[in-house]
């Protein structure tokens, strides 16, 4: 399983990566801004993505939209500190598969990733 983590915070990236590794994700790619995220997506084709909303160069909702346009079967988990329903809804309407608010606990991220992996696996079939 290949996971792309997009977040401008090193701390958040590594905590998501740690959780993903414990769940058996063997390949993890990371990006700190929207443009890197998109080019990385197009070159590596990960099976799932976690996406921060407030990232430099290209915002998360836009990234979700573009990824969804080229690969609608890739599940995207939006992780954002913006705890407002409008942002969540906008991301979901643009093709995200789920929404998690920051800060999250270890259990929360683990549960969310588990759902994401399950979804990615069901998409492969």
């Amino acid at each position: 399983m290949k996971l792309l983590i997009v977040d401008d915070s090193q701390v958040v990236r590594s905590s998501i990566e740690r959780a993903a590794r414990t769940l058996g994700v063997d390949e993890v790619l990371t990006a700190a801004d929207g443009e890197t995220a998109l080019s990385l997506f197009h070159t590596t084709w990960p099976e799932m993505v976690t996406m921060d909303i407030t990232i430099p160069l290209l915002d998360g909702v836009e990234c979700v939209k573009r990824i969804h346009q080229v690969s609608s079967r890739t599940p995207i988990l939006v992780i954002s500190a913006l705890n407002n329903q409008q942002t969540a809804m906008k991301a979901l309407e643009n093709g995200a598969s789920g929404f998690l608010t920051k800060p999250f606990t270890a259990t929360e991220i683990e549960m969310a990733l588990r759902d994401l992996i399950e979804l990615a696996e069901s998409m492969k079939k």
Partner: protein
Amino acid sequence: MHATDASKNQASGSLQVTATLEGLVLSRVSVSSQDIGFVLRGLFQNHPDLPGVIITLPDGAVSGLSKQEYFRQMARPFGPEVYNRRPIKLLLDHGVPTLSWMPGSTQVEAAAEEILRRSESRRYEPLLTNDRNGCPGIVDVHSILIALSQLSSIRARQMALILDTVPEGFLVIGSDRKILPGYSLSAAAMLGLFDLAGMTFDEALSNLDSKLADRVRSFVEILFNPALLDRLLEPANPVREFQARSAHGEPLHLAIRFKRVREQGCISQILVMIEDLTLRKRLENEATKLRDTAQMRFEVLTQLAGADPHHLPGFLDNFNALCQRLEKLEPGEDLNALRRRCHALKGEAGALGLSSFRTALHKAEDVIELDAPHRASMIGVLAELRAAAADLLTLARKLLSESSDPATASSSPSAVLSRFQALKKMLSLAVSEACNLTGKQARFELRGCFDMMSSRELGLLREVLQQLVRNAVVHGIETPAQRVAAGKPPEGTIIVAAREAGEFFEIITQDDGAGLDREALRNRAGESGEEISAEELIFIDGISTAQTLSELAGRGVGLGQIRESILIHGGTIAVHTQPGSYTAFQIVLPRTNQMHETADR
């Protein structure tokens, strides 16, 4: 015939939801397999409504033949000639299809399902069954179907009754986004509507809040997308908890949850649960307000206890006078002059260390020249302070008279008076001992009505107060150097004061030290402490903010045990703190009656 009995039974509507085949038996007419075929012909010709007969075999086994099957055999070439004059057994030997058997305890629904699985040509064949005594009987398919329809109408009535009476708001959104007819009456009532069926959920909500309804419409669309993750949709729920106004303008506090029903990879329905939190929220708000008032009063009390008693009454009188002026503000009043009075009084409050008053007056100064609504809220705050102060002014006066010279208090018998002095001596000793060991400086004051307490109360308080003043030196008062750096006098002050409040004594121990370090307490408490306030944590033994467990604080009993012994005496203890300025413990003890007291002596 049994036939008529059984059908009457059904018509009377005595059917239970748990009805079984046994109760539907239509006929128990039986023949022996050794009877000749004419017997069957006679039965079926004379009783046209007989669905079939039971055939008993010589070994006691039972079989059954339907009327339809019998006539089918008779219609065959030479049928009557072959069977009429020979034993019925021959029919069975020739492999004529017999009735299928189902136990009498089979539920009506299960039987109906079984019937639907039959082939078209044999669908209406009656069933062979038995009652609980093993006695065979024949059930006709039509009576099963009639019972089934009766059952479903009973179920529907029960469901309707449930939906009409449950307090929960419950409804189902179908895949066409419309609300299905089976919703609870409470759901309609909460949304302020008579009929929800056929509406979309956002239409139903638009009655309460049209903007919210728009967001709900988008959310419902998202919910119907099967590719999205159930658990991770909740943060997007715009109506997880929200406030609105009912059609009658009453405030309403609702929480709405959605549950998706998946069928073959699609979202077929969404269950919606609406919870009315209005009453709970109102109670919560009232409790919070009550607690805030109590907290404020307490702060005022501790501030008063620390203030110079000779200047207090004068300040409170001036404060009262200002409040009265503000409440009865007349048009054309010189607001600027009032503002200057606020400012002057604020200075006085600061000098006396009355921070609640200082803060309130500071705000008052700011808004005094603004519009009426601003002033109204400010006057509200001042009025609360004033009410608190009025109660406490009495106490202040009492403290003033008692602290000036306790020996002249005429009402106190000398034996009890010596208790007051003994307590004072003991606590002063504890303070100075602790000071010597820690290199800190502290002044100790004992005030109030300890002379009115029984030996029982004093016995408890001796232990408790000794530990609290020691704690005050060790944990509360800073070193002289720290104090000077913080702009305080090098010598700290520890005050223990008591007052009577109806059937209770209230005892306060206050130091003007660094206050509780909430952060450090939380850290020590670890994750488990997140739910508990810092004020609660210090009463949990084993959680202490002291960097090193000092010999003194470690000696004696912990705060947890102190609280326990106070609780045993029917009292309470609470802590109040202001980082950088004070920590105060408030003990409330019920008074023991005087009879008890005399017996004690």
